[in-house]
């Protein structure tokens, strides 16, 4: 979607390796989120940010960390990837109202 980009779009990594996914926005929105989407579970919140250096955990935060050093960038790190973290990861932004805008997603496969 215009204004929010995720990278990489696809990644295959080995179990035990660290992985960082990037979300970049050009909308200057305050709130940024990381979700994962899995069959049978829908979208589940991993972490979110409500400002630079202000982050909090979501529903499924174990095994993930995040950082937001600039308004426009929100990084999701898997410290030591596991097969259970194979998923599609979506970043989303909002300005405190309800108009969430989602990125196009990152498909991560952990082998």
């Amino acid at each position, binding site marked *: *979607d215009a204004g929010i980009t995720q990278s990489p779009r696809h990644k295959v990594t080995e179990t035990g390796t660290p992985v960082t996914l990037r979300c970049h926005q050009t909308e200057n929105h305050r*709130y940024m*989120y990381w979700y994962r989407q899995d069959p*049978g*579970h*829908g*979208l*589940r*919140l991993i972490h*979110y940010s*409500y400002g630079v250096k202000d982050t*909090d955990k*979501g529903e499924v935060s174990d095994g993930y960390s995040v950082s937001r050093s600039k308004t426009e960038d929100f990084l999701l790190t898997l410290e030591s990837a596991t097969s259970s973290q194979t998923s599609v990861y*979506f970043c989303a932004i*909002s300005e*405190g109202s*309800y*108009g*969430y*805008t*989602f*990125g*196009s*997603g990152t498909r991560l496969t952990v082998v």
Partner: protein
Amino acid sequence: EDKVVQSPLSLVVHEGDTVTLNCSYEVTNFRSLLWYKQEKKAPTFLFMLTSSGIEKKSGRLSSILDKKELSSILNITATQTGDSAIYLCAAVPYGGSQGNLIFGKGTKLSVKP
């Protein structure tokens, strides 16, 4: 525990049919409900519903919220193959963190020619 339940989980119809997708919620301090359409990539916003009984309409799609029944429906009339997608609903509670969107698991709609 807050939850959102969508039904059916999947649905197959033919072009021209009318479909109704359901979303029920049990959310503390409910504020509003969102509907999204997800094709191959990112969910895209369809409707936001805050007031009960007021229909939102966009072309062949319409949606309404019933706060008494804690539910919402999404109607699609004269379906087309391009309507094939996963439809997600999400509840937004008052207060708490801004990360509190509570998603249902989605309804997968397949429209056959």
